[in-house]
């Protein structure tokens, strides 16, 4: 008797359970796929290298460069054209720059170049950067920041530095620590370009690609790639004009708005060594464990607005550079929103910046380096306490 009416209930119940079961399976499968997809790169990033990179690079360095191929020879010629002719050209144009680290960010800027050490870069987009201008002239860099900052940051950009970098590159190619190779051709802004790949044989795993105008030697595109060959940043001309003369007034500092100047960028040539920097500051400079293939190629001491002195140590492998900034901590009382900047700043690790505190110093490490390399450097400074 009691079974009468239950059949209907079972039919509707069966429908419900099928729906619920199917939904459960689909959701569980989706969850598994997503977990798997997320876990794989995380694992790859967290896994220590199978062999010690700091040691392995020494072996590669000892092996020396392989015999030169036609592509390598052509690359040397093209890079010679870039350093000899390209840096002396007068031209103007429009560039687009993109960062692919974390969120994609993009700027557009007008470039005016008037030979070696004379460059003007005016931002036209995005709105936030519009009007910002970088002027390099007379061995100085002037960085105009429009309102609300409304000031010009000033520092040095010495031709001697430029020459030293070019000489270092030539020597690196010659002795085989820098590998260059033509990997193709492409039209950029209507100009036929050779694509040259530049790698450090013994140093960092990031590498560069230059698109060099075959006629003028001007670099019309630059790309920085990670060890997996993915572009992390690029800047390319969308228009270039070699014929229209550029007024000389554009390269005078007084062409910039009349706003206060702040000399808070390096304003002297690099110091000869860390010991020379140590004489100028009260705290003890900490030197990191330097990745194989890199060497120190610049030390500066810069005084900030409130008198804090920053020590800058710059390292290079001939292709990649990274800079370590050390500045004493000035503690502030944490406000009610103290947790907020902490969370935001964590995201900076998505870019080429790492920063931390250790002892009485703030550290910032900026450069294209593998995360495990950054970690090794950071730990070496922390252990040195």
């Amino acid at each position, binding site marked *: 008797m009691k079974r*009468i009416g239950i059949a209907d209930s079972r039919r509707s119940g069966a429908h419900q359970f099928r729906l619920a079961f199917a939904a459960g399976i689909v959701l569980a499968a989706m969850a598994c796929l997503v977990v798997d997809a997320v876990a794989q790169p995380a694992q790859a990033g967290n896994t220590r290298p199978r062999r010690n990179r700091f040691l392995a690079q020494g072996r590669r360095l000892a092996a020396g460069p392989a015999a030169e191929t036609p592509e390598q020879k052509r690359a040397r010629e093209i890079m010679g054209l870039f350093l000899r002719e390209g840096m002396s050209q007068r031209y103007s144009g429009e560039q687009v720059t993109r960062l692919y680290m974390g969120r994609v960010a993009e700027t557009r800027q007008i470039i005016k170049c008037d030979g070696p050490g004379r460059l003007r870069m005016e931002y036209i987009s995005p709105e936030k950067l519009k009007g910002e201008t970088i002027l390099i002239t007379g061995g100085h860099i002037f960085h105009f920041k429009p309102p609300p900052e409304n000031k010009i940051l000033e520092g040095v950009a010495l031709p001697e530095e430029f020459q030293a970098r070019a000489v270092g590159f030539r020597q690196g190619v010659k002795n085989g620590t820098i590998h260059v190779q033509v990997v193709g051709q492409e039209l950029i802004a209507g100009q036929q370009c050779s694509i040259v790949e530049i790698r450090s044989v013994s140093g960092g795993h990031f590498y560069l690609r230059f698109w060099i105008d075959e006629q003028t030697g001007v670099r019309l595109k630059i790309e920085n790639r990670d060890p997996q060959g993915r572009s992390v940043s690029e800047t390319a001309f969308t228009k270039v004009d070699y014929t229209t003369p550029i007024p000389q007034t554009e390269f005078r500092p007084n062409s910039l708005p009349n706003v206060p100047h702040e000399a808070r960028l390096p304003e002297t040539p690099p110091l000869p060594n860390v010991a020379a920097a140590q004489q100028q500051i009260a705290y003890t400079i900490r030197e990191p464990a330097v990745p194989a293939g890199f060497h120190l190629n610049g030390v500066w001491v810069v005084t900030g607005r409130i008198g804090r002195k920053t020590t800058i140590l710059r390292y290079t492998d001939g292709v990649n550079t990274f800079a370590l900034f050390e500045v004493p901590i000035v503690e502030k009382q944490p406000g009610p929103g103290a947790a907020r900047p902490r969370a935001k700043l964590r995201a900076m690790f998505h870019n080429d910046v790492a920063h931390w*505190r250790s002892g009485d110093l703030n550290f910032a490490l900026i450069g294209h380096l593998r995360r495990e390399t950054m970690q090794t450097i950071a730990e070496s400074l922390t252990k040195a306490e």
Partner: protein
Amino acid sequence: MNCRNVQPSLSEYIDNTLSARETWEVDRHLAVCNECNRALNEMRRTVNLAGAAPRFEVSESFLAGLQSRLAGVEPAPARWAWVEGLRELFRPRVLQTWGAALGAVGTAALALVLFMPRPVIVPGENRMPIAEPASVQSAARQNLALQAADPFADLAAANLSAHVSTDQASDTEPTN
């Protein structure tokens, strides 16, 4: 109550085994529902027919024999017990619960994956406290100046990178 709740209860309603409240609710529904009234009438007719059927009297010895034979029936062999267990697990009503449970687990896993904070760098990094934002911002700007005399640098990318860093430290003072 609606038809879906009332109809399974009709046989108990006829047998007067429902609670007072359930009976009152079934009554209230029957007062407005023709379909359930028809179902109730059909059921009553069936009950009446069954009640009107002739009864066969059996002897006491027959009942005693039947009971002893039922008592002697052996349980299913142990080797099939797990099959029965599985069947029990996948009864439709139990499956409904399984479906719901799987759904809940799936949703929870998905939510965990979507909203879980992800590590952004190798594990040890998070053990270190972060630097003062102003010092990071200042470093990013100074780094741009270091690139100015480097023919291999991408000055525009360095400036954009400094801006991205500055944006992320926007709650802080401009420089040191």
